């Protein structure tokens, strides 16, 4: 059954703060095979004008992937996770994430549409510091494949 488009616009409560640590950034950079010193070395990052090592452009996914579970777990949306595939992804940064940030994520379901028997849910995850500074807007489209 298609997901009701009137659910678009709903916003979920912010997540608990996520403490961004230098070792997590290094681990993520290692996992994507990126030796850029800005992700690993404090001196290199501060020489570029950053307060501490910065995270790669897609690092915010670590936070937003968790946060968007609220969509899958929302009983009113009734999403069958085994049918979900990732349609698109976008990161718009107000500034880079850096070690020492304490970040919350607020998920908004922006659009719900159905086409070709599939449901497409586009969410916007706003990443902000606990002090209220906006860091990134992360958009993701989940495609719920139709049955049959």
């Amino acid at each position, binding site marked *: 059954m298609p997901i009701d488009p009137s659910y678009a616009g709903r916003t979920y409560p912010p997540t608990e703060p996520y403490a961004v640590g230098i070792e997590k950034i290094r681990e993520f950079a290692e*996992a*994507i095979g990126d030796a850029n010193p800005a992700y690993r070395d404090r001196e290199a990052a501060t020489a570029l004008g950053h307060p501490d090592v*910065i995270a790669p452009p897609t690092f915010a996914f670590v936070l937003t992937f968790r946060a968007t579970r609220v969509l899958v777990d929302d009983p009113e949306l009734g999403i069958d996770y085994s049918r979900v595939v990732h349609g698109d992804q976008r990161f718009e940064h107000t500034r880079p994430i850096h070690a020492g940030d304490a970040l919350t994520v607020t998920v908004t379901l922006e659009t719900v549409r159905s086409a070709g028997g599939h449901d497409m849910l586009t969410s916007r995850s706003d990443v902000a510091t606990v002090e209220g500074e906006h860091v990134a807007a992360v958009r993701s489209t989940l495609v719920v494949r139709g049955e049959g």
Partner: protein
Amino acid sequence: MAPSPAEVEVGTTVPAQTFTIRRADLVRYAGASGDFNVIHWNERVARSVGLPDVIAHGMYTMALAARVVTDWAGDPGRVVDYGVRFTRPVPVPDDDVGAEVEVTGVVAAVLDGDRVRVDLTATHAGQKVLGRAQAVVQL
């Protein structure tokens, strides 16, 4: 060193890179990202849902492709906007050879405020795996 605005115009190419993805890379990415979807490490389950093999995380391919831009920008913090569509999966075989993804980039637009849009093309086995892959770089 970041390229200076004066030396960048529409059509400026960004150095291409080729990445090799092996099963071990997917395991490491799963751990680092928290995305433990079984289709990225379990061939039996991947095939049972109609996939040709274990497939790479789309986000892993997206992260690799970003490197073409972050290496060019010098300071990766200059990549202020980055988006892709996931158009085709990258199957990763259970061998030591892995799957190759080639990424090229070209400046497609010069924007206000010394920003440029780089359009990326990521191909595996001759076919595009990302669509509308675009990064905005603050020069």
